């Protein structure tokens, strides 16, 4: 399939309703993606488990990716294998993930910032 096929597939989805803000679980990546705002961003890796998304204009956190979700304790209780993930889910995921790390001052600050962002009223972007 070429770029035209990809373009047609994407075009077929453009009119579908968005669910912003929100996130989803990826089975192939074993990770959860979450977007508080829909703006251009740069990935900023905290560690092997968490990457935050920072807005290009002022580096604020606008989203987060949590990896190795299936290895988290209480994974079954989190019920993340659903297509829709909310802010509360993300706070729980970040706290559980942080508990598995060997925190440094820098990583603690970044995790704290990400958790704080997940607790803010989300912007649709």
């Amino acid at each position, binding site marked *: 399939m070429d770029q035209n096929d990809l373009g047609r597939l994407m075009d077929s989805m453009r009119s579908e309703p968005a669910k912003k803000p*929100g996130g989803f679980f990826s089975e192939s990546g074993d990770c959860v993606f979450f977007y508080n705002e829909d703006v*251009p961003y740069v990935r900023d*890796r905290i560690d*092997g488990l968490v990457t935050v998304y920072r807005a290009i204009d002022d580096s604020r956190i606008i*989203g987060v990716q949590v990896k190795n979700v299936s290895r988290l304790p209480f994974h079954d209780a989190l019920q993340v294998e659903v*297509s829709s993930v909310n802010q509360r889910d993300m706070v729980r995921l970040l706290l559980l993930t942080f508990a598995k790390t060997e925190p440094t001052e820098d990583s603690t600050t970044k995790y704290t910032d990400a958790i704080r962002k997940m607790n803010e009223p989300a912007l649709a972007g």
Partner: protein
Amino acid sequence: MRTMNQQRNGYHRLDNARNPDDPSGERIQLWMSIEMVHNSQRYSNFRFENIKTAAACIVDPLRINAHIRDGDESQGWCYVSAPDQIRSGQGDGLMQNGDRLFTVFVDSEFRVFDWGRENRDIVDRDSPDGASEQALAEGRGRFGELVWIKTT
């Protein structure tokens, strides 16, 4: 063996990707789940529109790194490119990529599951932050192995 014109139910085929197992050899197909495309559209236009940037990255990467997860015995790769422009997230709109790289993550089943902009490594400017050969040699690398470096 991965032959041409395969199909996977529920997946969109991305042709002509450089083969991470044999980067100088025959091109292969990678896959992106239709659900992943849907979810990208639902939650981030920037992510959604840059699926096209990801499709270009896997064809002509500057770097391919293997072993993309800590402690993960399975493979998985990170393709790296440096496009001048990327999608802005507003339809077909483009924006300058600036001094940044574009990365695409692929699992051991050759499924693309993530992509986006990243900062360059301070040592190897064609590797994403923390993924230079030096970092790898010193055992502090973000990935396990550098399997492809574009030389021309």
